[in-house]
C-alpha cells in the first residue's frame, strides 16, 4: 500500500470523468482524496454519460488527459470489459464486496447504489400528499404530476423507474413490459408529465413528482434552495435497486493514482462519504456487521420496505429491458 501511495503521489494527478459533484457526494470524495494524498484531480465532462465514458477511453487512448477510472452503469461496464478496455484490479477490501456484485477477475465491481424513489416537490403538490405506492400515481389527484428524469432511452434512472413500475405491476427483472404499459396508462389519464426532470431549475418549477434513484432525489442532491419543501419516499411494494460500477482504464495515464483512488473509495472513509450522500455503498453490509458505518447517515437513509425482496437486475436483463423499451416507448 505504501508503495502504491508513493507511486500515485509521484504521478500527481488523477483523471476522472462524468462525476457530478452533487451526485452521491462525489464532490466530497474528490476533495477528500485530493487533500489526503496531495493528488490533483482533473475532472472532465462532469455531466457526461456512461456511453461517453466508454467512448473517452477508446478515443483518448495514449493522451495524458485520458480518463484513469470510470463509474458506469452495468451494461456499459460489461461492454467495456468485453471490449477489453479495463485493467482488472482487486481492492484490499475485495472480500467485503458481495460475490454477486463483482466479476471474479476484478475487471469491474459495483460501488454504490440505491432504490427507485418518488421525490415530491411539496411546493407544487400543495395540499396533495406525496404518494407512497405505485398504484397511487394513477389517482386523479396527480394530474400532470408524475415525471421521470429523462427518457428511459437515455437516462438510466428513468429506465429503472419504468422497470420498478413493471416489477410492482406483475412484471419482473426479466419483464419490463408492464412498466411501459403502466406509463402509457399514466399518459392517457393525463397524469404523466413529460418534462425532463434533471436540473434544479426545472425540478423547482415543473416537476411535482420526480421518479429517480433515492440518493439523487433529495433536495440537497438537487441543489434546491431552502424555500423548496421536499420529500423523498421509497414506495411500498417491491423495491427496485441499481448499482454503478468502478473500473480502472487499461489505458490510464496515471495507473497508480487510479488504483489508489479505488482503494480510497472502498476504504471505510470512501464508503462512508457515499453513505453520507444518501447512497448505499457496496460494502455497507460488511460495515454494519463491523460497526464502522456512519451511524447518523445510515439512519438517515430513506426507509425501504421488504429490503430482502429487492429486485436488482443483471446485465443480461438490462439488455432485454433496454431493447424492449427502445422498440415500445414513444
Amino acid at each position, binding site marked *: 500500500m505504501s508503495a502504491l501511495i508513493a507511486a500515485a503521489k509521484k504521478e500527481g494527478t488523477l483523471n476522472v470523468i462524468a462525476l457530478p459533484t452533487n451526485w452521491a457526494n462525489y464532490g466530497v470524495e474528490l476533495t477528500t482524496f485530493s487533500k489526503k494524498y496531495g493528488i490533483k484531480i482533473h475532472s472532465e465532462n462532469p455531466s457526461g454519460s456512461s456511453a461517453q465514458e466508454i467512448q473517452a477511453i477508446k478515443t483518448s487512448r495514449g493522451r495524458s488527459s485520458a480518463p484513469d477510472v470510470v463509474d458506469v452503469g452495468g451494461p456499459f461496464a460489461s461492454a467495456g470489459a468485453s471490449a477489453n478496455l479495463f485493467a482488472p484490479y482487486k481492492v484490499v477490501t475485495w472480500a467485503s464486496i458481495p460475490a454477486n456484485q463483482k466479476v471474479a477477475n476484478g475487471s469491474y465491481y459495483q460501488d454504490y447504489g440505491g432504490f427507485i424513489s418518488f421525490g415530491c416537490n411539496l411546493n407544487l403538490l400543495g395540499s396533495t400528499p406525496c404518494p407512497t405506492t405505485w398504484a397511487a400515481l394513477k389517482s386523479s389527484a396527480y394530474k400532470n404530476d408524475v415525471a421521470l428524469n429523462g427518457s428511459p*432511452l437515455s437516462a438510466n434512472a428513468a429506465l429503472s423507474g419504468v422497470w420498478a413500475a413493471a416489477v410492482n405491476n406483475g412484471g419482473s427483472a426479466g419483464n419490463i413490459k408492464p412498466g411501459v404499459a403502466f406509463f402509457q396508462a399514466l399518459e392517457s389519464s393525463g397524469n404523466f408529465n413529460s*418534462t*425532463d426532470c434533471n436540473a434544479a431549475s426545472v425540478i423547482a418549477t415543473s416537476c411535482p413528482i420526480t421518479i429517480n434513484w433515492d440518493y439523487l432525489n433529495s433536495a440537497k442532491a438537487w441543489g434546491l434552495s431552502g424555500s423548496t419543501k421536499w420529500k423523498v419516499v421509497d414506495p411500498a411494494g417491491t423495491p427496485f435497486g441499481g448499482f454503478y460500477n468502478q473500473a480502472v482504464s487499461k489505458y490510464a495515464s496515471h495507473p497508480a493514482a487510479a488504483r489508489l483512488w479505488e482503494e480510497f473509495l472502498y476504504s471505510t472513509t470512501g464508503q462512508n462519504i457515499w453513505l453520507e450522500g444518501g447512497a448505499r455503498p457496496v460494502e455497507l453490509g460488511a460495515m454494519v456487521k463491523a460497526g464502522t458505518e456512519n451511524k447518523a447517515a445510515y439512519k438517515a437513509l430513506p426507509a425501504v420496505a421488504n429490503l430482502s425482496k429487492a429486485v436488482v437486475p443483471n446485465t443480461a436483463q438490462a439488455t432485454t429491458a433496454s431493447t424492449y423499451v427502445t422498440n415500445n416507448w414513444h
Partner: protein
Amino acid sequence: MSGLGGWAGILPFAAYVVVFLGIPLYVVVHGSLTTESNQLTFDNFRQTWSSPAYRIAFKNSLILSVWTSIVGALFGTWLAAAVVAAKRGSLLHRFVQSSSGVLAYFAGVPLAFAFIAALGLQGVVTVLLKHFGIDLYAHGFTISSMTGVGLCYVYFQIPLMVILITPALEGLRSEWQEAALSLGASKLRYLRHVAVPVLLPSFVGATLILFGNAFSAYATALALVGSTLSIVPAQIDNALNGNVLVGADRAGLTLGTEMIIVVLIVMVGYLLVQRRARRWLR
C-alpha cells in the same frame, strides 16, 4: 494568375468547411454504411427502419416540421404582405424587418426558457390565465407536448418566413396590378391569375426552407422537453450519448444519414421551385 488568387482567397473558408462539415459528414455516412469490422453493409438502415421507435421518431419529426412550416409560412406571408403594403421606410416597415431579423434567430435554449417562463406549469401566462379561470393544463395543454414544442417552433418560423418572402412580395410590380385593373379585371381576379401564380414558387420554396429549419432543429426541443420527446435528433442523442443503449452508435449515425437524405430531397425541391420563381421575379 487571378484565378489562382481567387482559389487562394477561399482557402481559409474551404479548410473550415472541410474540418467542420466535410469530416463529420464523412464520419456519419461512413459509419452508417459499415459494420464494426469496417465492412460495407446496409443492415444499419434495415435495423433503424424496422425499429418502431425510430419510425415513430421520424413520423413525429415530419409532422412537427410540416405543420410548423405551413403555419409559419401562412402567418409569415400575411405579416410580410402587411409590411410591404405599408410605405417603404415607414416605422412599421423598419420595425417588422429588423425585429424579424432578430427573432428568426431567437431559438434554442433561450427560446425554450422564455416559453417555460411564460407557458410552463408555473409560467406567467399560465398563472395569469388561471387567475381568470382558464386552466390551460386542465385542458390537456402542456408545453412539453408536441403541440407545445410546435408552438415554440412557430415563434421562429414566422419571422424567418417574413425575411424569406418579403423580397418576392416586393418584386410584385404595381404596374401589373394597374394593367390588370385597367383591362377590367377585379382585384380578386388579379390575385388569382397574376399575383398568386407569380408568388407560388417563392412561397413553396420558402416553406421548404422552413421545413428544413424545423426538421433539423433540436436545441429548442431538447431544452424544452429533454429526450422524452421522440424526434429524430433526440433519438440520435439517446443512441450516441445515452446511459441506456449500449453499442447503439451505428444506429445514431444511420439516423443522421437518413436525416441528411430527407434534407437533400427538400433542397432539390427548393432548387427546382427557385428556378421557376426566378422567371418573373428578378
